[in-house]
């Protein structure tokens, strides 16, 4: 269940990247993947590389995904900047 929450938070936060100039590596889809995988990987790491089930998923699980999603988006953005992507 936590996996669903992390993925959902990552995708939710990705929606707001529309306000950032599109210099992402892979464009808006790159940002999507960055947010999704960032949220899931950090959520997974924070929980000791286990995925909490329905009974063990609390509000904190949603918050755990935030730094991961942001970090994922940032990584993809700076990768795009390094490659010389210009804002479309």
């Amino acid at each position: 269940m936590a996996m669903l929450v992390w993925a959902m938070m990552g995708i939710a936060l990705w929606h707001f990247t529309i306000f950032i100039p599109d210099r992402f590596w892979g464009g808006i889809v790159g940002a999507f993947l960055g947010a999704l995988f960032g949220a899931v990987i950090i959520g997974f790491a924070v929980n000791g590389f286990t995925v909490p089930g329905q009974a063990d998923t609390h509000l904190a699980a949603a918050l755990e995904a935030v730094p991961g999603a942001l970090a994922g988006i940032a990584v993809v953005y700076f990768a795009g900047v390094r490659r010389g992507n210009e804002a479309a």
Partner: protein
Amino acid sequence: MSERRRHLLVLLIVLGLIAGSAAAILTQATKLGLDLQGGVQLIYQGKATKQTKVTAESLQRALDIMRDRVDAFGVAEPELARTGKDQIEVNLPGVKDAERAAKQVGSTAQLFFYDWEKNVLDESCHTNETEINGGQQPVTGLYNAIKRAAKCKITPPKTSEAAAAARFYAFDKVSKKPFNAGLPDESHDAALSGLDNAQKERAEVLEVKPGVLVLRDEKASATKPAPDAWWIIRDDPGLSGTDIKNPEQNFDQRAGNEPIVTFDFSDKGRRAFQRITSQVAQRGADNANPLNPDPVANSHHFAIALDNDLVSIPFINYRENPDGIDGSTGAQISGGFTITSAQDLAKVLKTGALPLKLELISRSQVSATLGKQALDQGLKAGIAGFAIVALFLLIFYRALGVVATVALAVYAVYFYALIKLIPVTLTLPGIAGLILTLGVAADANIVIFERVKEEVRAGRSVAAGLAAGYKKGFSTIVDANIVTLLVAFILFILATAGVKGFAFVLGIGTMLSLFTAVLATQAIILSLRGTRVMSSRSALGAGHAKHKITFDFMGASRWFFSMSGTILLIGALAIAGKGINFGIDFESGTRITAPLAKAATVDQVRTALAPQGLGGAKIQTVNNKDLGKNVVQVSTDTLKPSGVGAVNKTLDQRFGLADQPNVESIGPTFGASVANSALIAIIASLLVISIYIALRFEWKYAVPVLIALMHDILITAGVYSLLGREVTTSTVAALLTIVGFSLYDTIIVFDRIRENVPRMPSAAFSQIVNRSMAEVIVRSMATSFCTVLPVLALFLFGGDTLKDFAFALIVGTISGAYSSVFIAAPVLTHWKDREPVYCTRERRIRKELGFLPAYAVPIGSAPVDVAPAEERGGRRAITAPSDPTDVSRAEFDAMVRDLGIQEERQPASTGARGRPAGGRRARANGGRSGGGPAPQGPKPAGGDEGSKPKKPRNRKHGRPR
């Protein structure tokens, strides 16, 4: 064949099929599923034994034996089928006693005969064959018995079957009560697999080694419950069920006509029986107490065990049978039988033992009242769905709507006939699928009609608009329907039984709708296109558009993105905080819905059930007038059939049962398999759909589609969590249907983008998308609205199951329509905008105009639109328009250009200018007439000769009027 003849032929086929369908409807019976007529559904999972692995063959053998048993019990129209890789589903319509049905159909019926004293183990795990019963008493409590058996390590006898492999029992460490209904599993992990985390922490798993068998003691009498007393024995049977024949129920006249089961032995069995009984008798004689020589008190025993339960332990009187019992006259099993249970055992023994161990993982019992109620609700929802869709079509498309409604009625007749002819077992999810396909069929017409309106508004004649609408709309419909078919196919292959019915109906309906909504309506409409009604723009609802859409969809997309992001955030927080309310389909458990004769409060029911350990069960009253005034629902952990029987009995004794209770019992294994199959079905659907979109469009179109689909599914999950609605297998089917419908919408939008890309060679991608959106937004909204209408009927008139299903569909369809326009298209735009060709165009536009307009505008002499390149090659030729008064030459040329078809030259004209030689027949025959290419075709109005005004011609003679 001429166009008119082709249409006539199609109409004749339609009429012929209607006649055939009517005959089928009147003569064939409708096959109703259990949920619509009441009955018992049992789902078993095959487990390997020492002798047999779980393979397709062994499952089929088990299925055949189970079918024989069901036939022997005389159940009308039973359905038995293999489902999944290791499951067997048994549907028994009309059967009311689920407990008895489960025993009859699924008992392994492994019958073994033991030399009793030679096998009973003492506390030190040794046998003591000189003592009666090995000097032992049965152990009270399963935990104590297993604990003692777990200490024994013996060399397994070669004949061991029931205990050939180690068995693992899970118990609650604190209460010592068994988990998994006290049934053993084949491994430590398997014993824990069905438990939740809390149970796992409290669980103690005990292993009973091969060769050691724990048997439940025999019942004191038929009416007494099975005792919680257990024997621990060495598993060394002398005979098995394969050594007997002709089992029958009889009466033992020596014991007051007590019901018994008699049987004969096979030759091998007879010899073995005599040998063993002789040994038992001899041992009894050898060890008789000299002070009390009563043979009854001193005789040793011969035990009969069926499926790990002792059936009886008769003694062998060593005085009467010093050489054992000759098996030629057969033998009998007595003790603890009622007439019915003796008959059942005889029948089970007759059909033979099952080759596999079958574990009952799901058991549902639907009362006939609830089934009838569900059928009524389903029919009501279907009629309402049809009426509401027809009303929408009539209001929006007027004359075209009348034709579409007729086609919808034809579709309904065909579908009903097909259901009877195939025959399809009609279930509640199947009815939902049927109602949904009404929306699919109407959607196909909407796609075409909107295209027709568009063409007519663009300046074409009605006739040309109709032809172009069907031509251009068809490929969109095929794409969209193929996606729905793919989803239906994946659901049918991967999903569980209930969802399968829905998928099958959805698949058939989608294919049928292609015939009725496209071919049949085309034949009707194009046959009528010369009529006054079909020539009138207003009658088709194709008057001039009042408002031209100029909304900047792409510019506003950031606000729609923000809205979606916020909804998803709320959904994620809701799922994290509140979780998802999974139904017992996923969580496993037992749910009993019982209509009571007397009113009872929740506390009274709880108090009544507390002695059975159900004090902590979820108990609630249910408001269902059809079931009765006092309906209670008890939800608890999975109960064994006997447990369900005990609850029903208690409720009957305390409050009286007004009708047969509705029981749903799902084992943990079944819940897990339902969840797994749902997950696999969703992933497989997404993959297959992506591949299809990538092939039909471009791979970059597939990614936004996937993102939009995830968006829809997650939003639906979030809404379910927020509202706390129960997620069942029907919800999963609805989610997968959402995938199909969301794609339907997205494909409509993407299809237009694909069409406009070559038409706008100097526009930025966002301008192409804005233009495409403006062109299809009405169509997209109309199809979504038309899908929501029957779903709304399901929600309003369907029963509880259909309501849940409809709710997910309403949320998903609205989200799907929204995401197609405001998520998929903007993502595609942002992604494609980065391609060098579109970057260059955008830079050029900004350089020329200083900004990027939302919609393409002419820059310099370059036009916004160009005609797409015409297809070349061997396309079929078409004749001149069948009636020049319907279609002008210019329109005809435009149609030829639009359709990408090379015009075939007309025969040399004679008589009136602009008309082919030979009149209508020659025109109709076209290229087949043998007339070579004409030196010149009909000249377009406005050409050299066209500068002279044409006079209207007499239709019959071709002369000026």
